[in-house]
């Protein structure tokens, strides 16, 4: 018994070291004064200064943020409807196809999704003239498509764990199905929708392959610019970008954990969920 828990403990330590050391190294090197990765040239903010002057990276970051906000919002709306369809609408024709279309994007290799969407946009343009050019709009549509599946899964698992009796009671009292969804279901699944939005936002901000396929000339997102830079090797400015992103994520997670902790305490600290 003793040996096994030592084994588990050391695997856990090894696993977490494996997960976190590369990230910590990246953060550390973003403050390295030397442009060579090999030598520590002292502490400095020079790569952050360089970042402020780098129009290419700043514009790409701005474009990525815009796409991420719009696509996460649309994906949350569509994904919530999809979650309701999976869990509150009973049987309907084509349900199997629908569940397949929700599950498949979660694992589909990005090169296939990217290629297929680009070919769709090209064919649509030939047939209807729309989209007249590929760029931010086509990337946004692509991002909505794959991230709405993630939102749908999150929302539907929340709906599955929820008691339907409140909604049924409201319906029995004569509430219109739309009003019941708006006034009862949606407030109850709001936390799941928020997690879904955050996940969709992160996925959009991070996507390289699908954006490369669906973008046109001139529209380069942040991952596309980063990829073209790191293909040539270590780039100190990218270390700085990485550190900023990691910092924002860490802050967000600490904030979320604190909010959850406070909410649990307010509820009286009972329950382990």
């Amino acid at each position: 018994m003793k040996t096994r828990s030592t084994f588990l403990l050391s695997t856990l330590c090894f696993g977490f070291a494996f997960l976190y050391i590369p990230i910590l190294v990246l953060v550390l090197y973003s403050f390295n004064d030397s442009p060579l990765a090999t030598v520590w040239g002292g502490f400095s903010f020079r790569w952050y200064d360089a970042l402020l002057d780098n129009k290419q990276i700043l514009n790409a970051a701005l474009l990525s943020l815009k796409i991420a906000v719009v696509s996460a919002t649309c994906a949350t709306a569509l994904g919530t409807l999809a979650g309701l369809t999976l869990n509150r609408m009973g049987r309907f024709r084509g349900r199997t196809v629908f569940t397949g279309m929700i599950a498949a994007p979660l694992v589909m290799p990005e090169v296939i999704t990217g290629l297929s969407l680009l070919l769709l946009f090209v064919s649509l343009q030939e047939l209807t003239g729309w989209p007249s050019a590929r760029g931010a709009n086509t990337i946004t549509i692509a991002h909505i498509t794959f991230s709405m599946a993630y939102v749908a899964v999150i929302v539907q698992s929340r709906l599955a764990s929820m008691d339907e009796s409140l909604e049924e009671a409201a319906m029995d009292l004569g509430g219109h199905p739309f009003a019941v969804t708006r006034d009862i279901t949606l407030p109850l699944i709001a936390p799941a929708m928020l997690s879904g939005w955050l996940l969709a936002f992160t996925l959009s901000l991070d996507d390289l392959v699908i954006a490369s396929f669906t973008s046109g000339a001139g529209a380069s997102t942040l991952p596309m610019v980063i990829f073209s830079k790191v293909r040539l090797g270590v780039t100190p400015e990218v270390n700085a970008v990485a550190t900023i992103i990691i910092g924002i994520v860490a802050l967000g997670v600490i904030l979320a954990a604190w909010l959850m902790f406070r909410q649990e305490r307010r509820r009286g600290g009972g329950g382990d969920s």
Partner: protein
Amino acid sequence: MTGAIRHGAAGRLWRTTVITLPYAWLLLFFLVPFAIVFKISFADPIVAQPPFTPFFDWAESSPRRLLATFDNYLFLLEDKLYWVSYLRSIRIAFISTLLCLLLGYPMAYGIARARPPWRSLLLMLVILPFWTSFLLRVYAWIVMLGKHGVVNNALLSVGFIDGPLQMLYTDAAVYLGIVYTYIPFMILPLYASLEKLDQNLHDAAMDLGATPWKVFTDITLPLSMPGVIAGSLLVFIPALGEFVIPSLLGGIDSLMIGRTLYDEFFVNRDWPLASAVATVLLFILILPIMLFQRYQQGEES
């Protein structure tokens, strides 16, 4: 749903709207594109916009002439490059999945056996890297493994090696990159099934004199099989088509099918051949994806 029936036309309208909107979106932007990929995989590449021949010859002859061709698929069979890419991808994805399982299983088990407050903290630490950029986490390994990278420097200064090792741009780096980025997908489903495990079963078997190994192979492992299968599929399927990791960490000769497809499309600009490569990849993936869908539906009910 009873509500819709009770409320007649208005209720049905709302129900139809809820179902139709996401359904139509996914049909148009997820399912139809695959049909187009399939169609274009039978075309010939030409220098034009778009760079492929149409399925039918509309203008020339009055009974429409079918222009579809199997050339792309024949080419995939003939050229060794594609065979090598597919087989290497399957091998790399398979071995990476095993490595994820070997590291992920004890980690998930350790987390499931920890005290509750520790459990949520450890789980959060598993999920946290997933929220930071995937691309940047792959890039971190360039900093680690490069010729003058952190690992080489450390080994040199300790005196284990005399000259820098070639670690970056090798297959080993690709395995490392895949395990590093996909391990949360392995740990989470494993944890979910290990957490549900009844500790009494374990204790009873131990009391009856079973060795820890026997308890593991006869009780723990079989009961956690759903998690093993789900985690393995979540790692194997995306790893098979992986593009970023082999392009950044793999050598020039490290062909994986995702990278071959990308190059066929962007470098050679042969859209029909890229479509054929994608179609074959999709056929390889149909079985694992259907397994995954069945698991997802199992979770629903």
